[in-house]
């Protein structure tokens, strides 16, 4: 029985596995961590397992490099390796590596058991990486669930704090609800086009657009909008971020978000899902405004950064509103640049927060940052870099991120949306500057010595700060790469690959 006709070959080829190699490597290392967990001594397990996990992410980065040499699709058009997916593979795996690095000391201070923690980060990274290369809605759904479920669990890892369990259960319940919306959207899209493959959906939608496809797009956007914390699906964000362990917040506000943005880019620009303009417009405007205004009154640094992440999701969504014409490339590439810049500054900011939080995360109020400039000049300086980048001051990655998004929007004649974005950037500057003023111009509340910055956090801060500044000074390479991948995404026929055997459902 072979309904496919063309796809006679019954076993995956060797090259298929290379195109899937980073995910395989991450899964294997995740399992190694879990097997080693009971074998190593409890006191020393933290560091050792962390090293293994870090080694896993570094190997996965190498595997991504190998994978990038073999563009094309694998496993019967389930995943596709192009420069777009390579870009997001690098991003999410690097985020996972940095979060693992910044977790070393944190784990000891908070007395969290290491085994499952590192394992879940690695498995979550599998889901995120897979999301960026999957070109089949069913696989995207499974990858989305892998990444979401591991973050639900990671959010509840501070077992002795009720607030952490609250965060986990809230995230889980609302997240499952949102996933159901996404799944319903996938089912409707299948009903409208007869396929779940991004490539075939785009072909069907090129010839005619059934009304059902609009409903399907809206449902999928509800599900994915929740995952990127865009308004009006953002309500969970501050509570979840407040309760979850600080390094994990650094992970879940960047890694899964970047992956979901990759999925959104594929659904909107590659599969041509119709009717995105007003969905995106309203959601972007609401996210920016609600996020920034609510952040003004926060007194807890984690909640402040949570609202800031909602606002940044809004800025990023602006890029998605560009029409499917020649300028689509600019929109996509500006969105990709934004995810990188945002990942660098946010992982860095949360590394500082998790270092300063102390046992039980008691020092997360803004007041605790008063006088940090005197108590630890270097730490304050790095946090200042990240905050300036979050504002979008020139010479930082955040500036070019906003600049490219706004200029793409202006090219697409989205004047009102751009104005809303610029006004919001100005509002946002206030609460980021407030933290900087607190750090440098106020007396510290307590004169106790700060713990020394451990080496893991130090490396994380160095890498993220240098990345943030480099993106602000020499954005060219990343922009060129993202432009090229955007071009491949919109015009897949241009990229010389051996893909697109038709699927069997007929």
């Amino acid at each position, binding site marked *: *029985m*072979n*309904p*496919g006709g063309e*796809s006679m070959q*019954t076993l*995956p080829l060797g090259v298929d596995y290379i195109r*899937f190699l980073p995910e395989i490597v991450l*899964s294997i290392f995740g399992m190694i961590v*879990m097997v080693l967990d009971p074998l190593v001594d409890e006191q020393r397990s933290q560091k050792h397992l962390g090293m293994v996990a870090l080694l896993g992410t570094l190997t996965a980065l190498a595997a991504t490099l190998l994978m990038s040499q073999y563009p094309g699709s*694998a*496993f*019967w058009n*389930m*995943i596709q390796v192009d420069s777009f997916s390579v870009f997001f593979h690098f991003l999410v795996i690097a985020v996972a590596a940095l979060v693992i690095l910044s977790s070393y000391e944190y784990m000891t201070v908070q*007395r*969290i*058991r290491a085994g*499952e923690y590192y*394992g*879940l980060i690695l*498995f*979550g990274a*599998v*889901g995120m990486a*897979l999301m960026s290369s999957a070109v*089949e809605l*069913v*696989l995207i759904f*499974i*990858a989305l*669930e*892998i990444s979401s*479920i*591991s973050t*639900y*669990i990671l959010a*509840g*890892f501070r*077992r*002795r704090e009720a607030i952490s*369990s609250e965060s*986990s259960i809230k995230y889980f319940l609302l997240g499952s609800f949102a996933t159901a919306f996404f799944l319903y959207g996938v089912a*409707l899209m299948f*009903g*409208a*086009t*007869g396929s779940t493959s991004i490539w075939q959906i785009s072909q*069907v939608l090129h010839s*005619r657009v*059934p*009304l*059902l496809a*609009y*409903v399907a797009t809206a449902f999928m956007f509800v599900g994915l909008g929740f995952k990127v914390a865009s308004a009006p699906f953002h309500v969970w964000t501050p509570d979840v971020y407040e309760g979850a362990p600080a390094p994990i917040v650094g992970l879940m506000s960047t890694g899964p978000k970047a992956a979901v943005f990759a999925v959104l880019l594929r659904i909107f620009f590659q599969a041509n899902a119709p009717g995105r303009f007003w969905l995106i417009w309203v959601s972007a405007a609401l996210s920016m405004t609600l996020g920034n205004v609510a952040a003004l009154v926060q007194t807890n640094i984690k909640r402040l950064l949570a609202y800031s992440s909602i606002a940044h999701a809004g800025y990023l969504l602006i890029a998605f509103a560009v029409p499917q014409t020649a300028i689509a490339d600019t929109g996509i590439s500006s969105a990709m640049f934004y995810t990188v810049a945002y990942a660098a500054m946010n992982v860095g900011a949360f590394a500082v927060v998790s270092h300063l939080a102390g046992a039980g995360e008691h020092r997360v109020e803004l007041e605790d940052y008063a006088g940090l400039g005197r108590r630890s000049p270097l730490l304050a300086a790095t946090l200042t870099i990240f905050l300036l980048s979050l504002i979008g001051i020139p010479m930082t990655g955040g500036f070019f991120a906003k600049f490219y998004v706004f200029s793409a929007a202006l090219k697409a004649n989205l004047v009102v949306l751009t104005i809303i974005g610029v006004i919001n950037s100005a509002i946002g500057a206030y609460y980021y500057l407030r933290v900087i003023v607190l750090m440098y111009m106020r007396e510290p509340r307590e004169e106790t010595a700060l713990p020394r910055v451990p080496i893991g956090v130090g490396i994380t801060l160095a890498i993220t700060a240098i990345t943030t500044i480099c993106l602000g000074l020499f954005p060219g390479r990343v922009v060129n790469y993202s432009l090229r991948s955007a071009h491949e995404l919109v015009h897949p026929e241009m990229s010389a690959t051996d893909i697109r055997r038709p*699927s*069997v*459902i007929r």
Partner: protein
Amino acid sequence: MLHLALFSIFGAICVAGAVNLLVQRHPINSALSLIAVMTSLAVEYLLLGAEFVAAVQVIIYAGAIMVLFVFVIMLLNAGEEERTRGSRVAILFGIPGVLLGGVLVAWTLIQRSGTDEVALGALPGSPTIIGWLLFHDFLLPFEVTSLLILIAIMGAVVLAGKPEAETQQTGKGH
């Protein structure tokens, strides 16, 4: 004709069961009406020619999963649900919202979707084809699902285990 009649009857049972599920205030009653929903869905699948999916629906959803549901309800000893102000507000806005959404989706479904029309029961749904799809075209999602299940198990172990503080203290006591 018989097909259409059966389809409509079981469709009606399915919707009625789903509404009853929401209206009932005792969790056990809701669980029982969920069984009615699952079973009538299985009949619908059968009528559409998907006999394998229908069998799986009965065995897994109406069987295994519902048993778990009922067990959990029994274990938690869940009593009658209480109506709070929040739930009244939810009803106030939820029912019109659901009706509006339902009408919208139904209306778009009635519109010609553009995909080719097929007669009831004409689509292939035999175990052979499903097996081919599952282990050939959808091999990767099938395999990756194992990772998903592994993570779920890890989550259960982590979140249900004793917090570290207690285990450490008992460890010191020895």
